[in-house]
Protein backbone atom coordinates (compact mmCIF):
# COMPACT_ATOMS: atom_id res chain seq x y z
CA UNK A 1 0.00 0.00 0.00
CA UNK A 2 1.14 3.50 -0.74
CA UNK A 3 4.84 3.03 -1.13
CA UNK A 4 7.41 5.75 -1.27
CA UNK A 5 6.16 8.74 -3.18
CA UNK A 6 8.98 9.81 -5.45
CA UNK A 7 8.21 12.42 -8.06
CA UNK A 8 10.83 12.92 -10.72
CA UNK A 9 11.42 16.41 -11.98
CA UNK A 10 14.25 18.39 -13.51
CA UNK A 11 13.39 21.64 -11.73
CA UNK A 12 16.25 22.58 -9.43
CA UNK A 13 14.48 23.83 -6.32
CA UNK A 14 10.97 24.62 -5.25
CA UNK A 15 8.38 22.35 -6.88
CA UNK A 16 8.00 18.82 -5.55
CA UNK A 17 11.36 17.21 -5.91
CA UNK A 18 14.16 15.55 -4.06
CA UNK A 19 15.72 17.48 -1.21
CA UNK A 20 18.37 19.94 -2.32
CA UNK A 21 20.98 20.18 0.40
CA UNK A 22 24.66 20.98 0.44
CA UNK A 23 27.79 19.19 1.57
CA UNK A 24 31.21 20.14 2.91
CA UNK A 25 33.69 17.43 2.03
CA UNK A 26 36.27 18.72 4.49
CA UNK A 27 33.93 18.38 7.48
CA UNK A 28 31.76 15.56 6.09
CA UNK A 29 28.80 17.77 7.00
CA UNK A 30 25.55 17.69 5.03
CA UNK A 31 22.91 20.35 5.61
CA UNK A 32 19.34 21.10 4.53
CA UNK A 33 18.25 23.44 3.05
CA UNK A 34 21.31 24.13 0.89
CA UNK A 35 23.72 26.78 2.14
CA UNK A 36 26.63 28.35 0.33
CA UNK A 37 28.98 27.88 3.24
CA UNK A 38 29.56 25.09 5.73
CA UNK A 39 28.10 25.97 9.18
CA UNK A 40 30.96 24.12 10.84
CA UNK A 41 34.09 25.53 9.17
CA UNK A 42 32.71 28.50 7.21
CA UNK A 43 34.31 27.22 4.00
CA UNK A 44 32.46 26.69 0.71
CA UNK A 45 29.84 23.93 0.48
CA UNK A 46 28.76 22.20 -2.72
CA UNK A 47 25.12 21.47 -3.67
CA UNK A 48 24.02 17.93 -2.91
CA UNK A 49 20.81 16.13 -3.87
CA UNK A 50 19.65 14.19 -0.82
CA UNK A 51 18.04 10.78 -1.19
CA UNK A 52 15.17 11.52 1.20
CA UNK A 53 15.35 8.02 2.66
CA UNK A 54 15.76 7.80 6.40
CA UNK A 55 14.31 6.94 9.78
CA UNK A 56 12.40 8.95 12.37
CA UNK A 57 14.80 10.43 14.95
CA UNK A 58 12.25 12.26 17.10
CA UNK A 59 8.71 13.61 16.80
CA UNK A 60 5.85 15.47 18.44
CA UNK A 61 2.27 16.40 17.60
CA UNK A 62 1.06 19.97 17.19
CA UNK A 63 -2.18 19.64 19.16
CA UNK A 64 -3.47 23.23 18.90
CA UNK A 65 -3.66 25.69 16.02
CA UNK A 66 -0.45 27.79 15.90
CA UNK A 67 -0.83 31.57 16.04
CA UNK A 68 -1.98 33.07 12.76
CA UNK A 69 -0.14 34.82 11.22
CA UNK A 70 2.29 33.36 10.43
CA UNK A 71 0.35 30.06 10.40
CA UNK A 72 -2.07 29.53 7.51
CA UNK A 73 -4.86 27.12 8.33
CA UNK A 74 -5.60 24.55 5.64
CA UNK A 75 -8.95 24.97 3.79
CA UNK A 76 -10.67 22.37 5.97
CA UNK A 77 -9.53 24.07 9.20
CA UNK A 78 -6.86 23.03 11.70
CA UNK A 79 -6.42 19.42 12.70
CA UNK A 80 -3.54 18.17 14.89
CA UNK A 81 -0.52 17.16 12.84
CA UNK A 82 2.71 15.31 13.51
CA UNK A 83 6.18 16.63 12.86
CA UNK A 84 9.66 15.39 13.55
CA UNK A 85 13.25 15.04 12.46
CA UNK A 86 14.08 12.38 9.91
CA UNK A 87 17.66 11.11 10.00
CA UNK A 88 18.71 10.66 6.39
CA UNK A 89 21.36 8.18 5.32
CA UNK A 90 23.56 11.20 4.47
CA UNK A 91 23.77 11.86 8.21
CA UNK A 92 21.62 14.99 8.44
CA UNK A 93 18.38 15.16 10.47
CA UNK A 94 15.72 17.12 8.56
CA UNK A 95 12.63 18.71 10.12
CA UNK A 96 9.47 17.58 8.33
CA UNK A 97 5.72 17.34 8.72
CA UNK A 98 4.84 13.65 9.06
CA UNK A 99 2.08 12.48 6.73
CA UNK A 100 1.04 9.38 8.64
CA UNK A 101 -2.30 7.57 8.54
CA UNK A 102 -2.73 7.75 12.29
CA UNK A 103 -0.90 9.57 15.09
CA UNK A 104 -0.78 6.28 17.04
CA UNK A 105 1.49 4.64 14.50
CA UNK A 106 4.43 7.03 15.01
CA UNK A 107 7.57 5.35 16.37
CA UNK A 108 11.15 6.53 16.64
CA UNK A 109 13.14 4.52 14.09
CA UNK A 110 10.27 4.02 11.62
CA UNK A 111 11.43 4.23 7.97
CA UNK A 112 10.32 7.45 6.26
CA UNK A 113 10.84 9.10 2.91
CA UNK A 114 11.18 12.89 2.84
CA UNK A 115 10.20 15.00 -0.15
CA UNK A 116 10.37 18.74 -0.77
CA UNK A 117 7.42 20.67 -2.14
CA UNK A 118 5.92 24.13 -1.96
CA UNK A 119 6.07 24.20 1.82
CA UNK A 120 8.30 22.57 4.42
CA UNK A 121 9.61 19.03 3.77
CA UNK A 122 7.07 16.26 4.25
CA UNK A 123 7.76 12.67 5.25
CA UNK A 124 5.72 9.58 4.49
CA UNK A 125 6.16 6.04 5.81
CA UNK A 126 8.39 3.86 3.63
CA UNK A 127 6.66 0.50 3.52
CA UNK A 128 9.16 -2.32 3.29
CA UNK A 129 8.15 -5.68 4.73
CA UNK A 130 11.48 -6.51 6.34
CA UNK A 131 11.64 -3.21 8.22
CA UNK A 132 8.14 -3.52 9.67
CA UNK A 133 8.36 -4.95 13.15
Amino acid at each position, binding site marked *: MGGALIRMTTLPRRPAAGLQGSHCSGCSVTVYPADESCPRCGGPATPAALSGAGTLWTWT*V*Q*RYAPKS*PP*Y*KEPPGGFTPFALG*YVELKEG*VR*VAAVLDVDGLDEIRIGMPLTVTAGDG*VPRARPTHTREEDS
Partner: protein
Amino acid sequence: MSGDVLICGAGRTPFGRSEASGRQLAVSAVGAALADAGIEWSRVGAAFGGSDSAGLADTLVTQLGLTGLPFVNVKNGCATGGSALISAVNAIRSGMADVVLAVGFDKHPRGAFDPRPEDWGLGKEYGSDGLMVTTQFFGMKIQRYMYDHGITPHTLALIAEKAYRNGARTPEAWRRKPVSAAEILDSGMVSDPLTRYMFCSPGAGAAALVLCSPEVARTLDTPAVTLRSAAVRTRRFGSFEVFSPWIPGGELTSVSRDASAAAFEEAGIGPGDVDVCQLQDTESGAEVMHLAECGFCEDGEQERLIAAGATEIGGQLPVNTDGGCIANGEPIGASGLRQVYEIVQQLRGAAGERQVPGAPRVGFTHVYGAPGVSACTVLSR
Protein backbone atom coordinates in the same frame (compact mmCIF):
# COMPACT_ATOMS: atom_id res chain seq x y z
CA MET B 1 41.72 40.10 36.92
CA SER B 2 40.00 37.90 39.47
CA GLY B 3 38.92 39.04 42.88
CA ASP B 4 35.81 38.32 44.88
CA VAL B 5 32.50 39.83 43.90
CA LEU B 6 29.66 39.75 46.37
CA ILE B 7 25.91 40.04 46.10
CA CYS B 8 24.84 42.40 48.88
CA GLY B 9 21.27 43.07 47.78
CA ALA B 10 18.58 41.06 46.01
CA GLY B 11 15.04 42.03 45.12
CA ARG B 12 12.17 40.71 43.03
CA THR B 13 8.55 41.46 42.33
CA PRO B 14 5.73 38.94 42.27
CA PHE B 15 5.67 37.18 38.87
CA GLY B 16 2.55 36.54 36.80
CA ARG B 17 0.00 38.91 35.31
CA SER B 18 0.34 42.53 36.36
CA GLU B 19 -1.38 45.85 35.78
CA ALA B 20 2.02 47.51 36.12
CA SER B 21 4.32 48.03 33.15
CA GLY B 22 7.53 46.05 32.85
CA ARG B 23 9.48 49.21 33.64
CA GLN B 24 7.42 49.87 36.78
CA LEU B 25 8.12 46.32 37.91
CA ALA B 26 11.83 46.89 37.28
CA VAL B 27 11.87 50.05 39.40
CA SER B 28 10.15 48.15 42.18
CA ALA B 29 12.69 45.29 42.04
CA VAL B 30 15.63 47.73 42.04
CA GLY B 31 14.17 49.51 45.04
CA ALA B 32 13.83 46.20 46.88
CA ALA B 33 17.42 45.19 46.05
CA LEU B 34 18.82 48.54 47.22
CA ALA B 35 16.80 48.39 50.44
CA ASP B 36 18.00 44.82 51.01
CA ALA B 37 21.60 45.97 50.66
CA GLY B 38 21.07 49.12 52.69
CA ILE B 39 22.59 51.15 49.85
CA GLU B 40 21.34 54.38 48.28
CA TRP B 41 20.87 54.60 44.49
CA SER B 42 23.39 57.44 44.43
CA ARG B 43 26.08 54.99 45.61
CA VAL B 44 25.63 52.72 42.53
CA GLY B 45 28.55 53.30 40.16
CA ALA B 46 27.38 51.35 37.11
CA ALA B 47 24.32 49.41 35.96
CA PHE B 48 23.53 46.69 33.44
CA GLY B 49 20.09 45.41 32.56
CA GLY B 50 17.50 44.55 30.00
CA SER B 51 14.23 43.02 28.93
CA ASP B 52 13.24 41.03 25.89
CA SER B 53 10.05 42.92 25.13
CA ALA B 54 9.29 45.47 27.86
CA GLY B 55 11.57 48.36 27.03
CA LEU B 56 15.07 49.67 27.58
CA ALA B 57 16.66 49.34 30.99
CA ASP B 58 18.68 52.54 30.78
CA THR B 59 15.46 54.58 30.71
CA LEU B 60 14.84 53.48 34.32
CA VAL B 61 17.09 56.32 35.48
CA THR B 62 14.10 58.63 34.99
CA GLN B 63 12.49 56.93 38.00
CA LEU B 64 15.60 55.79 39.88
CA GLY B 65 17.42 59.10 39.78
CA LEU B 66 19.56 60.98 37.28
CA THR B 67 22.89 60.39 38.94
CA GLY B 68 24.88 60.26 35.71
CA LEU B 69 26.02 56.65 36.12
CA PRO B 70 26.89 54.49 33.09
CA PHE B 71 23.88 52.23 32.35
CA VAL B 72 24.29 49.57 29.65
CA ASN B 73 21.34 47.84 27.97
CA VAL B 74 21.62 44.07 27.60
CA LYS B 75 19.49 42.05 25.20
CA ASN B 76 20.49 38.41 25.11
CA GLY B 77 17.29 36.37 25.04
CA CYS B 78 16.89 34.06 28.01
CA ALA B 79 20.46 34.91 29.06
CA THR B 80 19.63 38.63 29.41
CA GLY B 81 19.77 38.50 33.21
CA GLY B 82 22.86 36.30 33.20
CA SER B 83 24.66 38.53 30.73
CA ALA B 84 23.79 41.62 32.78
CA LEU B 85 25.14 39.86 35.85
CA ILE B 86 28.42 38.93 34.17
CA SER B 87 28.85 42.48 32.93
CA ALA B 88 28.32 43.69 36.49
CA VAL B 89 30.91 41.22 37.79
CA ASN B 90 33.45 42.39 35.24
CA ALA B 91 32.74 46.02 36.09
CA ILE B 92 33.68 45.34 39.70
CA ARG B 93 36.72 43.20 38.86
CA SER B 94 38.04 45.80 36.44
CA GLY B 95 37.73 48.58 38.97
CA MET B 96 35.08 50.44 36.95
CA ALA B 97 32.90 50.66 40.07
CA ASP B 98 32.61 49.03 43.49
CA VAL B 99 28.80 48.97 43.67
CA VAL B 100 26.99 47.75 40.54
CA LEU B 101 23.37 46.98 39.68
CA ALA B 102 22.08 44.13 37.50
CA VAL B 103 18.37 44.25 36.61
CA GLY B 104 16.11 42.15 34.40
CA PHE B 105 12.39 42.60 33.67
CA ASP B 106 9.73 41.67 31.17
CA LYS B 107 6.06 41.63 30.36
CA HIS B 108 4.77 39.33 27.62
CA PRO B 109 1.34 38.96 26.05
CA ARG B 110 -0.75 35.88 26.85
CA GLY B 111 -0.07 32.60 25.09
CA ALA B 112 2.94 31.12 23.34
CA PHE B 113 5.62 33.34 21.85
CA ASP B 114 5.00 34.07 18.15
CA PRO B 115 8.31 34.55 16.40
CA ARG B 116 8.60 35.40 12.69
CA PRO B 117 10.52 32.96 10.45
CA GLU B 118 12.38 35.75 8.63
CA ASP B 119 13.88 36.91 11.97
CA TRP B 120 15.43 33.46 12.30
CA GLY B 121 16.77 33.20 8.76
CA LEU B 122 14.08 30.70 7.77
CA GLY B 123 11.77 30.55 4.76
CA LYS B 124 8.19 31.80 5.14
CA GLU B 125 6.90 28.24 4.78
CA TYR B 126 8.17 27.36 8.29
CA GLY B 127 5.69 29.91 9.64
CA SER B 128 2.76 29.27 7.29
CA ASP B 129 3.03 25.47 7.72
CA GLY B 130 3.03 25.77 11.51
CA LEU B 131 6.60 24.89 12.49
CA MET B 132 7.42 28.19 14.29
CA VAL B 133 6.11 26.96 17.64
CA THR B 134 8.53 26.74 20.56
CA THR B 135 6.63 23.97 22.35
CA GLN B 136 7.36 21.62 19.43
CA PHE B 137 11.10 21.86 20.11
CA PHE B 138 10.67 21.12 23.81
CA GLY B 139 8.48 18.12 22.97
CA MET B 140 10.88 16.74 20.38
CA LYS B 141 14.02 17.13 22.50
CA ILE B 142 12.60 15.32 25.53
CA GLN B 143 10.87 12.73 23.29
CA ARG B 144 14.25 11.58 21.98
CA TYR B 145 15.83 11.81 25.44
CA MET B 146 13.11 9.58 26.93
CA TYR B 147 13.69 7.04 24.14
CA ASP B 148 17.46 7.03 24.67
CA HIS B 149 17.50 7.07 28.47
CA GLY B 150 14.32 5.42 29.72
CA ILE B 151 12.55 8.45 31.20
CA THR B 152 8.78 8.01 31.66
CA PRO B 153 5.90 10.49 31.42
CA HIS B 154 5.27 9.91 35.14
CA THR B 155 8.67 11.49 35.88
CA LEU B 156 7.73 14.53 33.79
CA ALA B 157 4.57 14.83 35.88
CA LEU B 158 6.49 14.53 39.17
CA ILE B 159 8.69 17.48 38.16
CA ALA B 160 5.72 19.74 37.51
CA GLU B 161 4.05 18.50 40.70
CA LYS B 162 7.14 19.56 42.67
CA ALA B 163 7.18 22.95 40.92
CA TYR B 164 3.60 23.74 41.98
CA ARG B 165 4.24 22.44 45.50
CA ASN B 166 7.30 24.71 45.85
CA GLY B 167 5.40 27.57 44.22
CA ALA B 168 2.77 27.25 46.95
CA ARG B 169 5.53 28.01 49.49
CA THR B 170 6.85 31.04 47.57
CA PRO B 171 4.92 34.28 48.19
CA GLU B 172 6.04 35.89 44.89
CA ALA B 173 5.29 32.86 42.67
CA TRP B 174 2.49 32.96 40.10
CA ARG B 175 1.17 29.37 40.41
CA ARG B 176 0.60 28.79 44.11
CA LYS B 177 -1.88 25.91 44.10
CA PRO B 178 -0.55 22.34 44.37
CA VAL B 179 -1.47 20.16 41.39
CA SER B 180 -1.25 16.35 41.50
CA ALA B 181 0.79 14.27 39.06
CA ALA B 182 -2.45 12.67 37.82
CA GLU B 183 -3.99 16.07 37.07
CA ILE B 184 -0.80 17.12 35.29
CA LEU B 185 -0.85 14.03 33.07
CA ASP B 186 -4.58 14.63 32.34
CA SER B 187 -4.29 18.37 31.62
CA GLY B 188 -4.28 17.92 27.84
CA MET B 189 -1.42 17.18 25.46
CA VAL B 190 0.23 20.32 24.04
CA SER B 191 3.27 18.92 22.23
CA ASP B 192 3.69 15.21 22.88
CA PRO B 193 4.89 14.04 25.40
CA LEU B 194 4.37 17.35 27.24
CA THR B 195 0.99 18.30 28.69
CA ARG B 196 -0.38 21.76 29.46
CA TYR B 197 0.53 21.82 33.16
CA MET B 198 4.10 20.72 32.41
CA PHE B 199 4.81 24.06 30.72
CA CYS B 200 5.61 27.49 32.11
CA SER B 201 3.81 30.51 30.63
CA PRO B 202 5.23 33.82 29.46
CA GLY B 203 4.38 36.42 32.11
CA ALA B 204 5.47 39.63 33.82
CA GLY B 205 8.04 40.27 36.55
CA ALA B 206 11.36 41.81 37.50
CA ALA B 207 14.41 40.95 39.57
CA ALA B 208 17.47 42.97 40.56
CA LEU B 209 20.79 42.38 42.29
CA VAL B 210 23.25 44.78 43.86
CA LEU B 211 26.86 43.58 43.58
CA CYS B 212 29.85 45.00 45.39
CA SER B 213 33.52 44.57 46.17
CA PRO B 214 34.65 42.87 49.42
CA GLU B 215 35.69 46.28 50.83
CA VAL B 216 32.17 47.65 50.41
CA ALA B 217 30.60 44.43 51.75
CA ARG B 218 32.47 44.83 55.03
CA THR B 219 30.74 48.16 55.65
CA LEU B 220 27.21 46.70 55.21
CA ASP B 221 24.91 45.07 57.74
CA THR B 222 23.28 42.61 55.30
CA PRO B 223 25.03 39.23 54.96
CA ALA B 224 26.60 39.13 51.51
CA VAL B 225 26.77 36.05 49.29
CA THR B 226 29.91 35.40 47.23
CA LEU B 227 29.48 35.04 43.51
CA ARG B 228 32.13 32.37 42.91
CA SER B 229 31.68 32.40 39.14
CA ALA B 230 29.41 33.42 36.29
CA ALA B 231 29.74 32.10 32.74
CA VAL B 232 27.84 32.65 29.49
CA ARG B 233 28.31 30.46 26.41
CA THR B 234 26.74 30.22 22.96
CA ARG B 235 26.17 26.94 21.14
CA ARG B 236 28.81 24.98 19.32
CA PHE B 237 28.24 23.00 16.15
CA GLY B 238 26.11 19.92 16.72
CA SER B 239 23.55 21.21 19.20
CA PHE B 240 19.76 20.79 18.94
CA GLU B 241 18.01 24.16 19.12
CA VAL B 242 14.56 25.61 18.58
CA PHE B 243 13.50 26.48 14.99
CA SER B 244 16.15 24.35 13.28
CA PRO B 245 15.23 23.11 9.78
CA TRP B 246 17.95 20.50 10.28
CA ILE B 247 20.34 19.28 12.94
CA PRO B 248 23.61 17.43 12.41
CA GLY B 249 23.80 13.68 12.87
CA GLY B 250 25.82 12.09 15.64
CA GLU B 251 25.95 12.89 19.34
CA LEU B 252 24.51 16.26 20.34
CA THR B 253 26.60 19.01 21.87
CA SER B 254 25.04 21.13 24.64
CA VAL B 255 25.59 24.79 25.42
CA SER B 256 24.29 24.17 28.95
CA ARG B 257 27.00 21.54 29.40
CA ASP B 258 29.61 24.04 28.18
CA ALA B 259 28.41 26.97 30.33
CA SER B 260 28.01 24.91 33.50
CA ALA B 261 31.45 23.32 33.07
CA ALA B 262 32.98 26.79 32.63
CA ALA B 263 31.20 28.08 35.75
CA PHE B 264 32.36 25.12 37.85
CA GLU B 265 35.91 25.39 36.55
CA GLU B 266 36.10 29.09 37.41
CA ALA B 267 34.64 28.43 40.86
CA GLY B 268 37.09 25.60 41.49
CA ILE B 269 34.36 23.21 42.68
CA GLY B 270 32.15 20.58 41.07
CA PRO B 271 28.45 19.69 40.85
CA GLY B 272 28.87 17.35 43.82
CA ASP B 273 29.60 20.35 46.06
CA VAL B 274 26.28 22.08 45.31
CA ASP B 275 23.65 22.12 48.08
CA VAL B 276 20.77 23.82 46.20
CA CYS B 277 20.26 24.65 42.53
CA GLN B 278 18.01 26.41 40.07
CA LEU B 279 17.76 24.89 36.58
CA GLN B 280 15.93 26.27 33.55
CA ASP B 281 12.58 24.48 33.53
CA THR B 282 10.60 25.98 30.69
CA GLU B 283 8.81 22.64 30.93
CA SER B 284 9.31 19.39 32.84
CA GLY B 285 11.53 17.85 30.17
CA ALA B 286 14.02 20.70 30.40
CA GLU B 287 14.59 20.08 34.12
CA VAL B 288 15.21 16.38 33.46
CA MET B 289 17.78 17.05 30.74
CA HIS B 290 19.45 20.01 32.44
CA LEU B 291 20.13 17.91 35.55
CA ALA B 292 22.42 15.79 33.38
CA GLU B 293 23.69 18.57 31.10
CA CYS B 294 24.83 20.59 34.13
CA GLY B 295 26.62 17.57 35.58
CA PHE B 296 24.37 16.70 38.51
CA CYS B 297 23.68 13.13 37.33
CA GLU B 298 24.26 10.71 34.47
CA ASP B 299 21.79 10.49 31.61
CA GLY B 300 18.90 8.29 32.69
CA GLU B 301 19.58 8.51 36.43
CA GLN B 302 16.81 11.11 36.74
CA GLU B 303 14.13 8.41 36.62
CA ARG B 304 15.33 6.95 39.92
CA LEU B 305 16.46 10.23 41.54
CA ILE B 306 13.19 12.05 41.01
CA ALA B 307 11.05 9.11 42.14
CA ALA B 308 13.18 8.98 45.32
CA GLY B 309 12.59 12.68 46.03
CA ALA B 310 16.23 13.70 45.55
CA THR B 311 15.27 17.04 43.97
CA GLU B 312 12.69 17.98 46.62
CA ILE B 313 13.41 20.72 49.16
CA GLY B 314 14.36 18.06 51.72
CA GLY B 315 16.25 15.88 49.22
CA GLN B 316 19.95 15.47 48.52
CA LEU B 317 19.92 18.10 45.73
CA PRO B 318 16.95 20.48 45.96
CA VAL B 319 16.11 21.86 42.49
CA ASN B 320 13.97 24.92 41.77
CA THR B 321 13.03 25.55 45.37
CA ASP B 322 10.88 28.57 44.43
CA GLY B 323 8.89 26.57 41.88
CA GLY B 324 11.12 27.53 38.95
CA CYS B 325 9.73 28.79 35.68
CA ILE B 326 6.79 26.36 35.85
CA ALA B 327 5.39 28.05 38.99
CA ASN B 328 6.79 31.56 38.41
CA GLY B 329 6.19 31.91 34.69
CA GLU B 330 8.83 33.24 32.38
CA PRO B 331 9.37 36.96 32.02
CA ILE B 332 12.42 36.32 29.84
CA GLY B 333 14.64 39.19 30.99
CA ALA B 334 13.96 38.57 34.69
CA SER B 335 14.17 34.79 34.85
CA GLY B 336 17.92 34.37 35.34
CA LEU B 337 18.12 36.97 38.10
CA ARG B 338 15.06 35.47 39.81
CA GLN B 339 17.09 32.26 40.11
CA VAL B 340 20.02 34.09 41.72
CA TYR B 341 17.62 35.92 44.06
CA GLU B 342 16.32 32.54 45.23
CA ILE B 343 19.80 31.12 45.84
CA VAL B 344 20.71 34.25 47.84
CA GLN B 345 17.66 33.67 50.06
CA GLN B 346 18.56 29.99 50.49
CA LEU B 347 22.20 30.68 51.39
CA ARG B 348 21.18 33.38 53.87
CA GLY B 349 18.68 31.01 55.48
CA ALA B 350 15.95 33.51 54.63
CA ALA B 351 13.76 31.36 52.34
CA GLY B 352 10.96 30.90 54.88
CA GLU B 353 8.62 27.96 54.25
CA ARG B 354 10.76 26.72 51.36
CA GLN B 355 14.10 26.92 53.18
CA VAL B 356 16.40 24.00 52.38
CA PRO B 357 17.33 22.36 55.71
CA GLY B 358 20.92 21.97 56.88
CA ALA B 359 22.15 25.52 56.18
CA PRO B 360 23.18 25.15 52.51
CA ARG B 361 26.55 26.69 51.66
CA VAL B 362 26.84 26.39 47.86
CA GLY B 363 24.24 27.22 45.20
CA PHE B 364 24.08 27.02 41.41
CA THR B 365 21.89 28.68 38.77
CA HIS B 366 21.38 27.85 35.09
CA VAL B 367 19.41 29.48 32.28
CA TYR B 368 19.14 28.27 28.72
CA GLY B 369 17.40 29.72 25.73
CA ALA B 370 17.15 30.43 22.04
CA PRO B 371 19.12 30.45 19.82
CA GLY B 372 21.49 28.33 21.90
CA VAL B 373 22.75 30.41 24.81
CA SER B 374 23.28 29.49 28.45
CA ALA B 375 24.36 31.38 31.57
CA CYS B 376 25.39 29.71 34.84
CA THR B 377 26.52 30.94 38.25
CA VAL B 378 28.06 29.35 41.34
CA LEU B 379 27.39 31.10 44.66
CA SER B 380 28.51 30.42 48.21
CA ARG B 381 28.31 31.95 51.65
